[in-house]
C-alpha cells in the first residue's frame, strides 16, 4: 500500500473495526488491569469479556496509558511505510496517552509525527481519525482535525458515578451527585472539560433530556450513539435522534471499549458528535 501519510489513534477512540481496515487506521491499545492481570484494550480483551469480568470482579479494574515506547514502535514501523503520521488521541486532561504519544514521536528521528490532543474521547476521536484518513495530504488532515477539536461534544448518562469517581476523574460534588441517594448524572465533555449537565433519578427521564441537550447544539456534522451494555436504550436513543436529524447525517452506533467503560461503568449511554462549523 503506498500512501503518503497514515493515521494513528488509541483504543479509547472506539473506531469501528471496519474503519480500521478500510482506512488503514492504526490503534494503540491502552491497558486494563484487573488486580495483577493486565490486558491490552481490545487486543487481549474483547468488550464482552471485559463486562463479564467486571461483573465478577471484587475490585474495580484500573487503566493505564500506553508507554511512549508503544507509540515509538508503531511510528518506527510506519516510518518505513509512509512519509508522515497524524496521531489523534484521548484528551490530555483525561489521560496521559497524548503525552506518551508526544514522547514516542520524539524517539523517531526525522519522521514527521503530528500529535493532536482531541480534548475528547470515544467516537469524537473516531470521527477525527476517519476525517484525517480521508484527507488528501497530511497538512489537510491536520487542518481538518484541529479545526474540529473545539466543536467535539459528548453527552452521556451514567448509571452511577461510582466508576468515574473511583478513577479520580470527577468528584461527587462536581457531578452534583450526593453521597447517599442514588442519582444518575448526565455528564458532558466539551473542550476538554468534564461537567455535570443534569441529574435524574430514573433512566426513563434521562433519554429525552439527552435529546433535548443535543438539540441545543444542532446543527451537527457527525453523530454516534455509544453505550456500555445498554444496546436497547442506545437503539431508542438513536431512533429519537434520527427523528430530528436531516437525512444526510448518519448515526453511527457502537459499544464503549473496556478502558473507557472502566470509567463510565456498565449501563452508560451517550452521544458523541461534532457540531457544524
Amino acid at each position, binding site marked *: 500500500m503506498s500512501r503518503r501519510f497514515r493515521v494513528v489513534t488509541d483504543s479509547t477512540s472506539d473506531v469501528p473495526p471496519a474503519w480500521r481496515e478500510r482506512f488503514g487506521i492504526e490503534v494503540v491499545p491502552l491497558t486494563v488491569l484487573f488486580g495483577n492481570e493486565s490486558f491490552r484494550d481490545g487486543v487481549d480483551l474483547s468488550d464482552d469479556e471485559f463486562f463479564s469480568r467486571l461483573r465478577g470482579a*471484587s*475490585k474495580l479494574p484500573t487503566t493505564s496509558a500506553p508507554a511512549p515506547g508503544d507509540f515509538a514502535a508503531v511510528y518506527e514501523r510506519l516510518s518505513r511505510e509512509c512519509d508522515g503520521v497524524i496521531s489523534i488521541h484521548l484528551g490530555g486532561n483525561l489521560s496521559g496517552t497524548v503525552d506518551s504519544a508526544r514522547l514516542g514521536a520524539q524517539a523517531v528521528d526525522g519522521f514527521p509525527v503530528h500529535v493532536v490532543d482531541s480534548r475528547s474521547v470515544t467516537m469524537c476521536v473516531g470521527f477525527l481519525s476517519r476525517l484525517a484518513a480521508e484527507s488528501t495530504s497530511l497538512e489537510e488532515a491536520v487542518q481538518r482535525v484541529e479545526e474540529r477539536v473545539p466543536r467535539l461534544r459528548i453527552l452521556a448518562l451514567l448509571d452511577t458515578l*461510582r466508576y468515574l469517581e473511583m478513577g479520580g476523574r470527577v468528584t*461527587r*460534588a462536581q457531578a*452534583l*451527585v*450526593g*453521597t*447517599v*441517594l*442514588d*442519582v444518575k448524572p448526565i455528564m458532558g465533555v466539551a473542550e476538554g472539560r468534564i*461537567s455535570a*449537565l*443534569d*441529574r*435524574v*433519578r*430514573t*433512566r*426513563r427521564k434521562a433519554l429525552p433530556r439527552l435529546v433535548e441537550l443535543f438539540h441545543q447544539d444542532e446543527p451537527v456534522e457527525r453523530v454516534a450513539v455509544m453505550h456500555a451494555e445498554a444496546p436497547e436504550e442506545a437503539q431508542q436513543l438513536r431512533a429519537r435522534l434520527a427523528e430530528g436529524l436531516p437525512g444526510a447525517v448518519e448515526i453511527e452506533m457502537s459499544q464503549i471499549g473496556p478502558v473507557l467503560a472502566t470509567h463510565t461503568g456498565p449501563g452508560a449511554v451517550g452521544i458523541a458528535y461534532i457540531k457544524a462549523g
Partner: protein
Amino acid sequence: MLLTLQSAVEDIKESHTTEVSKIARIAAHGSLMGARGNSGVILSQIFRGFGNAVQQKSELDPAELAQAFEEAANAAYRAVIKPTEGTILSVAREAGRSAVAAAHEAGVTPADVIKAAAAGAKVAVERTPSQLKILQEAGVVDAGGYGLQIMLEGMVRSVEETGADALAPPPPRVAAQSALELPEEGWGYCTEFLIRGEALDVERLREEIAALGNSALVVGEPDLVKVHVHTDDPSRVIALASSHGRIDRLSVGDMSSQHQRIRQESSVGAQVAAGGRPPQAAAQPARANGVGLVTVVSGPGLVEIFRGLGADATVEGGQTMNPSTQDMLAAVESVPYDEVVLLPNNRNVVLAAAQVPGLSGKRVHVVPTESVPQGIAAIVAFNPERPVDQNLQEMRKAAGHVQTIEVTHAVRDSRSNGLRVKKGDVIALINDKLKHAGADYGSVVRAALDGIKAADYELVTIYRGLQATDVEAEKLSEAIRGRFPGLEVELQAGGQEHYPFILSVE
C-alpha cells in the same frame, strides 16, 4: 398555634406598651414571625386584620372592638387561596359576627363584645364536623377553630379578672428544646464522618457505632458509609471506624456548648439546621447561577440526602412540628446567596413558607412541595448551571411527577373515604389522602402501589423512619420486588418520625 401565639405574647411583653394600636401591630408582627403550620399562619393573619382595624387608636370602644374582630376574620379569608368552611376561618367569621351583633345592644361593654365573640366561636366550632366530612368521619372538631375559641375564652377570663393577676406565668420554652434530642447521659459530641473502604459491612458498623453513643445513624453503601452519632468519646468512634476504612470529612461538635448557645438565642432562630447544627453553607462550592437552596426536613438520613443533593441549609420540621416563618427566614438569610429557592416539603408548611419572600431582603422563590418525595424530586431537578426561572419550572414539573405514599399507624378508630380503620392499623396515604388500611406494612404498601399502577413506573425509593426496623424495611423491599419485578427498589434510612415508611414512586 400555641407557639405562634407565644411568639406574639413575648414580643408584646418585651415592648412594655399599653397603646392598643401598638400592641395589635406587635401581635401581628410577632405572630407572623413565629407562625407555624396552617392554623398558625391564619392566626397571624387574624392578628394582622385586627391590627389594621385599630390603627392610630390608643383605646377602643365596643363598636370599634367588634369591627376589629370582624376585620380580623376578613383578613384571614383573604390570606387563603381556597377558603374552607368548618375551619378556623369560619370560626373567626362567626366570632366577628357575634361581636358586631353584641355591639349594637344598648349599654354594652368591651367585655360583653369579647364574650359574644367567644360564644360565637364556640357555636361555630361545634358546627365544624357537619361542614367537613373528614372531621365527621374521624369524630372530632376542627383543631384550629377550637384553638381560636380557647383564645377568645382566655380573653374573656382575662377581662373578668383584674389587671396584673390576669397575666399567666410565662410559658415554658417548649419549642426550642423539643427540636433536639436530649440524651440521658449528657450532651457529648456530635460526631460525623464518612468511611471510605471496600465491602464495608453497614449493619455491623451500625451495631458497633450505636454501642458507643446515641442517635447513631450509619448509612451508605459497601464503599462509602456516612456516620452520625452523639457520643461522649469521639476518639473511640473514630478509632473503630478507622479499622474499617479511611475516614473523610470528619466533624466533631461539642453539643453542650451548642445547646447553651441555642438556649441563649431566641427560641425561633435556634432551630435552623436540623439537629442543632449551624447551617454549613460556607462548605459548599460557589454556585454558577448564584441560587441557594433551603429545605424543611427532619430525620438525620433525610437531612443528609437533601444536603448531598445541594441543600445549603435545612430547617427542622416534620409532621407535627411545623417550622415557623421565622425559622425558614433565618435559614434563608444564613445562606451565602442573594437568591434562594425554598422547599417546604409538607402541605402544612407551604403557607408559612409562602410568607418568607415578603419578609426577606433576598429574592426568595417557594416551590410548594407537599411531601418529602416531592422535595427530593424537586431538588434533584435543580441545576446550578441553569438560570433560576428555568430551574423553578423544572423543579415544579419534577415535584408534580412523583407519587408519594406515606405509611403510618392509625391513632384512633375512624371512617374515612369509605375506609374503616381501627386504632393501630397500618395505613397508607397516597399524595396525602388516606387510601389503604390493613394489618401489616407489606400488604398495605402493595395495595397502595397497585392503586397507583406502580408497574407503569420505574423506581420506588423507601425512606425508613425511626419506628421501623431494618428487618421490616428489608421485608418491605422484598414484598415490593416480588409483586413488581420490573421496578427498581431503593432503600434509604430516612430517620423521620411519625412515618415508619415514606415511599417515592417515579
